[in-house]
């Protein structure tokens, strides 16, 4: 399947910033704006980034939809960075018009709830997008860390080459394929909908935050039972942070749970890859072709 890679950014290009899901005060986006500015881009703030919303969302469905729509349609904007995830893409995804975006693709940047947008675009329009840090990750002096800088490199078109330490649960081997994935809960949530992703011959990556252990087990079983694990080229397990347990303990760690569910497959598997809700979160191009090489010394994910 051919994938369209949106044009990489040039100095002076404009990045639009929107909040298509949860609310975020604009002060918390300041470092991100300054950093993007420092990288040589000008930042155009969407109306949802300075919203007067008093509830969970950064604006009504209509406001969030219009803001994102306007950014998608504006040809001057070369990339759209979602300031925050949270919850809200499900509510507007079927109302977004991708007509102009398909003709003039641009980079959509974000993760967590933005997984739905990535999956939807990949499945329906075969356009690559960027699973990467959002505004909050730039704060607390982190704007210069390797994970944030990986977003800079990605936008400039430098091919990714990420290394990560070995993990006892890894399965060695080499896989080549398009990269798909994101937040486990949301990949499960879009199963059976028009934003569902086909995973055959692809490298799948998963991460999640704040889930009950039993639910991680259930979500993996959903992926498995809907045929999404059967014929992967490779599997990347990122961070599963701030997990919760039930009153009666589940009795296994997250990685134990995942290992038990995927151990029978013969494709390479890399645990503890730096993609997560914590700062270890490399920019990953969904839809682009990568090579995953898992050995007993190191795991490498590189763009090819």
């Amino acid at each position, binding site marked *: *399947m*051919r994938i369209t890679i949106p044009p990489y950014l040039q100095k002076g290009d404009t990045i639009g910033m929107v909040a298509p899901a*949860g609310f975020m005060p604009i002060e918390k986006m300041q470092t991100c704006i300054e950093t993007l500015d420092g990288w040589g881009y000008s930042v155009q703030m969407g109306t949802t980034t300075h919203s007067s919303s*008093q*509830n*969970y*969302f950064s604006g009504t469905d209509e406001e969030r939809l219009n803001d994102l729509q306007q950014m998608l349609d504006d040809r001057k904007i070369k990339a759209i960075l979602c300031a925050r995830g949270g*919850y809200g893409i*499900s*509510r507007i995804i*079927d109302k977004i018009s991708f007509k102009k975006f398909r003709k003039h693709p641009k980079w959509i940047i974000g993760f967590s709830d933005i997984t739905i947008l990535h999956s939807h675009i990949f499945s329906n329009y075969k356009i690559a997008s960027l699973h990467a840090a959002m505004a909050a990750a730039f704060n607390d002096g982190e704007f210069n860390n390797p994970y944030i800088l990986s977003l800079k490199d990605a936008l400039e078109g430098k091919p990714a080459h990420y290394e990560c330490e070995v993990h006892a649960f890894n399965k060695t081997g080499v896989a080549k394929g398009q990269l798909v994935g994101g937040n486990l809960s949301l990949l*499960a*949530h*879009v*199963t*059976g*909908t*028009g*934003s*569902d992703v*086909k995973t*055959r011959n692809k490298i799948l990556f998963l991460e999640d935050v704040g889930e009950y252990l*039993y639910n991680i*087990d*259930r*979500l993996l*079983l*959903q992926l498995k*039972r*809907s*045929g*999404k694990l*059967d*014929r992967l080229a490779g599997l990347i397990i990122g961070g599963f942070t701030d997990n919760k347990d*039930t009153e*009666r*303990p*589940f*009795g*296994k760690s997250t990685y134990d749970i995942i290992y038990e569910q995927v151990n029978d497959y013969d494709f390479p598997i890399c645990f503890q890859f730096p993609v997560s809700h914590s700062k270890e979160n490399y920019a990953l191009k969904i839809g682009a072709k990568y090579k995953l090489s898992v050995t007993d010394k190191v795991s490498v994910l590189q763009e090819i």
Partner: protein
Amino acid sequence: MPSGIRSFSELVVITLGVTCELPETSKNRHTSVKNVFIPVNYCCKLWQEVFLVSPLVYFVQMDRKYFLGTAATLLAGTAVPLKKSYANNNDEELIYRKPPYLENGDSIGITSPAGFTTHMEIQPAMQVLQGWGYKIQLGNTIGKRDFTLGGTDEERINDLQTMLDDPKIKAIMCARGGYGSIRIVDQLNWTKFKLSPKWLIGFSDITVLHNHIHNNFQVASIHSKMTNSFPDDWNTADPIQIETIISIQDALAGKKIKYSVIPNTRNKWGNGEGILIGGNLKTIETLSGSTSDIKTDGKILFVEDTGEYLYSIDRMFWNLKRTGKLKNLKALLVGGFRVKPDDPGEEFGKTLEDIVLEKVNSYTYPVCFDFPVGHQKNNFALKCGVKHRLSVTEKEVTLTEII
């Protein structure tokens, strides 16, 4: 494969003017494709050789890999990529079977397919069920524990399997929900159950079993309280506890269901008739895309959940909508949702009723809120896979079993 076609299931063969979709084979890599008709008078390349297919319909049996290579050549330019119909929710042609109702002296098995339970905890239920004239057969998972589960997967499979296969057992009551049914559902052998169905009883995590047998075997089952909800002391129990437990007795004995509900002012009025199906909303979402996923066209859907944030409930209703499960319903029953309060500063700003109605406002079927089903005391027995009529008016809501 021809460009634009993403998967095998999307290949469409045009045969003699008839369009047929090829079977979904994602479950088994080596599934052989049988009975594939190759278009008449088609020049095709088979095993590097060129054949002119005779005007007779060519009948082939071949394995998938071979077929794909062939099909790609054969169909280049003629195959039509269909937009996958994500919302295939129609099984209205199917006939649902009711297991035999129970007679005095029949046996009910009690097992733990999900969370663990102790011998002590099931005593009240045992006494009540025996008082109704039934024998109890205790599964060996009762009293077993593997952390939160009622025994290892193997132990839970074996126990439930024994009960499914034992012809003396006429109904199986699950001890409790929790989590675990999904871990064993694909390993169960349903051959004997299909031949001689029996009543499966439970709710919450047991939604996995209800939906699985509904979708695969079209057998009715009872969505109701389980052994952990029977009152310790019948004499001091709330009237509603007694009433809901009696509703299980009535359902097992074959008494037709008829429940009246106090109307919620936000109900949508109307009448609807259809097969009843549903259960725990989160569980229904996690079955999406699997073989246990329910089809809802022409049916009455009921949903309930507990301990979820409003945003999460909203997301789950979007899943129902986006998987096509709300579009062609005959009625929607919204049961109890013990909503987890929003975190400060994260107020969702919509009520449960708002969340539901915005998804279904364009549809004409009736919607009933506060239906007595869920993780609460007023959780009445419902027969999944059985035809019901729902009538919602300003003054009254009634759910009646018909046929």
